[in-house]
Structures are given as C-alpha cells and as structure tokens.
C-alpha cells in the first residue's frame, strides 16, 4: 500500500484523470479509482468529498444533479476547462517525481 502522504498528493491527479474519461458521481468515482489502481488508491466517503468540494471551489470540476439510469438523483462531477488545463502539468509533475524515485531506487539497489 502507498503511504497516506503520497496518497493525498496523488488524489487530485486521480480524480482529474478519471473525470477526463467522462462525468461521474462520487461513489462511482471512488470505485473507478480503486479498480484502475488495483486497490492502491482507495477513497472512503470521508476522504473523497472534502477533496471534491475543494476542487470544485478551485473551479477544476463542476457538480450538477443528474438522474442515473435507475432513476436515482446523483450529483455528477465533470472536468471544467480549468481542470483540463490543470491535469497536464500535474501529470508531468508526478511523472517526473516517480521517474526520479525510480532512478534513485535503482541506483540504491544497483
């Protein structure tokens, strides 16, 4: 499992990335992230919603009430243009960080 500090840092990237595929409500978002990261990133309700609300306030995502196929009302989130703009440099930052860590650990073990 990945440590909680790193998880916090990657949470925004994870949310923006899954929303890039299309609008999702909170529960579906948490399930999708867990499935795509093979359980390495797991969002409980208590972790997810404060994060979503903060990202909404920053204007990266926008929530709106929609009716799902089973007739239930759910608040769906979608990426805003500002969120799309944020995603690319965020991806680059994390790729650089993980690349650097990978090189470091290879050197340490090599």
């Amino acid at each position, binding site marked *: 499992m990945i440590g909680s500090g790193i998880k916090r840092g990657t949470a925004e990237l994870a949310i923006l990335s899954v929303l890039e595929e299309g609008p999702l*409500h*909170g*529960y579906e978002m948490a*399930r999708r992230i867990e499935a795509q990261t093979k359980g390495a990133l797991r969002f*409980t*309700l*208590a972790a*997810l*919603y*404060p*994060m*979503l*609300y*903060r990202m909404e*306030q*920053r*204007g990266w995502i926008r929530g709106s*009430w929609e009716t799902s196929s089973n007739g*239930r*009302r*759910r*608040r769906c989130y979608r990426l805003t243009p500002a969120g799309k703009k944020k995603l690319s440099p965020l991806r680059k930052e994390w790729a650089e960080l993980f690349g650097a860590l990978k090189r470091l650990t290879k050197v340490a073990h090599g």
Partner: protein
Amino acid sequence: MVDWQKLVRQRLSNLALEGAEKDEVHAELAAHLEESYEAFCREGLPEKEAVHRTFEQVADWRDLQRRIFIAKRSGHPMQKRVHQLWIPGFLTMALSIVFLVTLQKLKIKARMVSWRDSDIFFFAPWLVSLPFLGALGAYISSRAGGSRGTALLASIFPALALTLTFLLMFPIDMIIEPIIGRQVDFSIVATVLLRDGIGWILVPGAALLSGGSLVHLWLSQRSRSQNPAIS
C-alpha cells in the same frame, strides 16, 4: 433498513453552510452511503455487516463536518466575489446601458409623467427589458454559487451603481457650483434628486429586482425538485 438521509442529517446537523447548500451535501453523502451499502449487500454480506462496513467509511463525523466546511469555503474570496457579483453585476449594467442608448438612437421617446410640478421620464421599452436583465444577472450569479443575497444584488447592480453616482454627483455639484459663481437652490436640487431617483433608480430597480427574484425562486424550486433531501 437504515434511513441514510436521516442519519447524515443527524451526524452533520452542525454543518455551518447555508440551507440549500447544506441539504445538497446531506443528500449527496446519503446517496453515497446508500450505494456503498447496496454494493456490500450484493457482495453477499449480511445486512448488519453491510451496515457496519458502510459506517466504517466515516471514522469521525465531526472531523468530516469540519473538513467539508473548510473545503466549501476554500475558494479565494475575491475570486468568488468577482464571479458571483462583479461579473454578473457589470454585465447587467452594461446591457441595460447599451439597450437604453440603442432606444435613444432609434429616437424612441420617453414617456413623461407629471408629479408634483415635476416631469418624471419613463422609457417604457427599456423598463420592460429590465426584469429580463435582472433575471440574467441573478442567473449568472446563482450559477457561480452566489447566495440569494448576492444574486439579488447582482440583479439590481445597475440601480445601485446609479444610486452611488447620484450620491456622489450632488455633493460634488453643490461644492463646484458656488466655486464657479452659481447660486445653489437646495429646493431645486432636492426636487431633481427625488424626480431622477424615482425615474432612474426606484422604478428600474424594482423592475430589475422582480426579474432577479423570479429567477432565484425558479432556481430554488428546481434545486428542491432535483434534490429529494431538500424539504
């Protein structure tokens, strides 16, 4: 069967947000818990275990309440103010001025109403347009997350700006006129202030406010009908 709506409302009862915003948070979190519970049931867990696993998602409700409040209020206050008040307000004002100038260019005459030996000017087509412009201001403000007060302020923004102009113009005029050697007749100033205040501020302000109030009412009702938790 657990009533998730009721449970979330109880656990987050002290969430310090405005009514509709608070109800939306309650409804959203309850929907999430309900869906988690149903997923656990589908996995074959007994009801009691499914409820227990669902509850495990929130270890500390008071902490969650605090973090939701901080997150909801985390937007830069100045940026929020710009999107919720200044942009819709200035847009409403710009459109109302453009429309008024267009009417004047088209040589559409203002209607004069006599009142206490004064003539008050009313541009009927312009006044008719104002509820729509007030509605637009309130709609843009509400879409940006503006509260009822902010949305209504955005809708009557042109009238407020004109009030401020009047309040500044008359004292300045009363200082300048004696300097350039003209006599100031206070009764004339008061009459002009009252006449123009009615024609250019009170009546247009009421028209703008009527449109803004209607749109806000419509948005509130739509939000309630879309969100079953809002009663």
